[in-house]
């Protein structure tokens, strides 16, 4: 019983990491239909931001909290720059965007290697994040790591913030208008170019926040982004384009599925099985869990 509960909690915490990574993509890929393979490197930028800040702010907790907004700005600025330099020329060619941004991701990785060195770098986690909370005591205590709870909280906060931005603010309304009908939005006086850039800024900024979170659980190095990017894209594909709720549900479902399968088989087998499950799922719902219905031909 403890095992099942424990794995469910583990799954939820894996899901929270996955969600945080995929959330920015749900905006750039899900809403704007841009496949940005350099998203992983924006995550990396967020993680390195934490590392750099910790050099000047010695208190680990303080630097982590400061890193959140700073990483958002750093990665967001990188994203907006990328959008301005390249992506805006490619909105009609999503597959070319994929390959172009893959090239960008290669260059950013090498840049990180040249700046910070090829080896991973370390950050210190604040003491209040290294312990764990006991949920069920006894001989086989069920514990949840503080860092994982922190990430879960961060993911929930980011989802709420993104959802309310999209729903309640003028910016959100503009983004949704552009997603639904670009031409109409343009003639209604919305500067689609500015909306695109802003949306890209926010989506990439969220990657920066994910990067800060990842410093708590994983390595910080030039290749940290590539390790997670495909999983994140799969979350969006299965969740359905343009739907935040799909992303949230699927991130947690895949997290739990992965952790349960890992427990009962091996990590390798679990990874392969999860992929098979995804292909099978797409047979059933080729457009993902939730879809926006449109009447367009393409």
């Amino acid at each position, binding site marked *: 019983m403890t095992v099942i509960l*424990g794995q469910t909690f*583990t799954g939820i915490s894996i899901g929270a990491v996955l969600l945080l990574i995929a959330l920015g993509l749900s905006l750039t890929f899900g809403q704007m239909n841009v496949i940005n393979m350099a998203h992983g490197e924006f995550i990396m930028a967020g993680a390195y931001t934490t590392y750099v800040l910790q050099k000047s702010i010695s208190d680990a907790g303080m630097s982590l909290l400061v890193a959140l907004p700073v990483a958002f700005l750093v990665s967001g600025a990188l994203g907006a720059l990328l959008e301005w330099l390249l992506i805006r020329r490619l909105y009609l060619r999503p597959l070319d965007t994929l390959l172009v941004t893959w090239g960008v991701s290669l260059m950013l990785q090498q840049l990180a290697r040249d700046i910070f060195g090829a080896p991973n770098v*370390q950050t210190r986690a604040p003491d209040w994040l290294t312990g764990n909370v006991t949920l069920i005591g006894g001989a086989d205590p069920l514990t949840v790591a*503080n860092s994982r709870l922190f990430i879960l909280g961060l993911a929930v906060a980011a989802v709420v913030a993104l959802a309310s931005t999209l729903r309640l603010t003028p910016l959100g309304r503009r983004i949704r208008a552009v997603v639904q009908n670009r031409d109409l939005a343009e003639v209604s006086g919305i500067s689609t170019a500015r909306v695109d850039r802003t949306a890209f800024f926010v989506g990439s900024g969220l990657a920066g926040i994910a990067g800060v979170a990842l410093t708590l659980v994983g390595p910080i190095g030039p290749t940290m982004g590539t*390790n*997670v990017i495909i999983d994140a894209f799969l979350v969006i594909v299965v969740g359905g384009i343009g739907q935040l709720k799909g992303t949230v549900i699927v991130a947690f479902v895949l997290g739990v599925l992965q952790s349960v399968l890992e427990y009962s088989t091996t*990590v390798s087998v679990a990874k392969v099985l999860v992929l098979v499950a995804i292909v099978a799922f797409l047979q059933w719902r080729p457009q993902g869990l939730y879809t926006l219905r449109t009447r367009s031909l393409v």
Partner: protein
Amino acid sequence: MSSASIILRRRFLSGGLALTAVVALSACGAKTDAAGSSDEAAQADVSGDTVKVGLLNSLSGTMAISEVTVRDSLKLAIDEINASGGVLGKKIQPISEDGASDWPTFAEKAQKLIKEDRVAATFGCWTSASRKAVKPVFEKNKSLLFYPVQYEGLEQSPYIFYTGATTNQQIVPALDYLKSKGLKKLYLVGSDYVFPRTANKIIQAYAKANGMTILGEDYAPLGSTEFSTIANKVKAAKADAVFNTLNGDSNVAFFKEYKSAGLTAKSLPVVSVSIAEEEVKSIGSQYLAGQLTAWNYYQTTAGAANEKFVKAYKAKYGEDKPTSDPMEAAYTSVYLWKAMVEKAKSFDPEKVKAASDGITFDAPEGEVTVDGATQHLYKTARIGEIGTDGLIKEVWDSGKPIEPDPYLKGYSWASDLS
């Protein structure tokens, strides 16, 4: 190798395939100039006043993290040797090639070094996979490779010198150490590749013979960074110690998760065989303090040779750069080659091999001796404890260099292994 003899040394020409008749014609025409010489082993070019050696390391890709440090210490040794007069009066000219963390590329670059650059010897490779990829290249061309990383044993190529530890100089002593401390229930965690799987097979056999129990064995794909489930499994198993053969990035995620799960070096110590000073630096002593490692060398190893090595390395590459076991083995390998060449008075690989037995060198790790029969080194095993300062402090050593035994022939419990 037995398999080679089965193949007839046939040529396509004599086979007379109709399909390739035209092709064969032009093959004949083209053959005369090149094939005559390349039929034999590629000759090292030692005609000038320099001698070329190859440095074959991944300078890009996932393995670059580790292999660049090896390349750096190889260069350090070469510089030192050149400054003191070179080898047989010739300056060493290193030719560095990037294996790009890709095994077929390693094979390609090894060929280039041997055939195009005509190097006298090659130093490098890190992963077993890259070594397996280049092994036939060195054997076919009768050229020498010095391999500086601890590995899984069960190999003895006539053209490779293994200057890192084999299993009986690292894993077996680590198990002896655990046994002596009364830690008898082990959990095995490793990356999914050759070294951990073979190491764990050896550990299983050792455990069976020594009254230890293995409570679980888990592998994560190379580069995997999600370890919460494995940490849960380890925690639930209630073992005495964890034997860790994870590689690279995975270690960072594993130790962060390990601490989060409330496991400590006191409650459940981890013995790692792939975590050296460089890795400690990237994981953070916050997560590692108190955990154990098994190697033949630490930056803190006592002795004048090591003091000199550490000082020279830091002077050349930076004060914050630690030295580690594979770096030390690489550094040592160049000096060993120099000693062999000088003893043989020739760069010819066959003569160098013949001269190798009994060569000793006062290495940073202590004295090492080449065992000509296995082409491995006598090395001292050392167990270290990671300190809060990020350095590894030695807590036990084998007292004297251990004779290399790559096939574990001297251990009765290992008779089924190969």
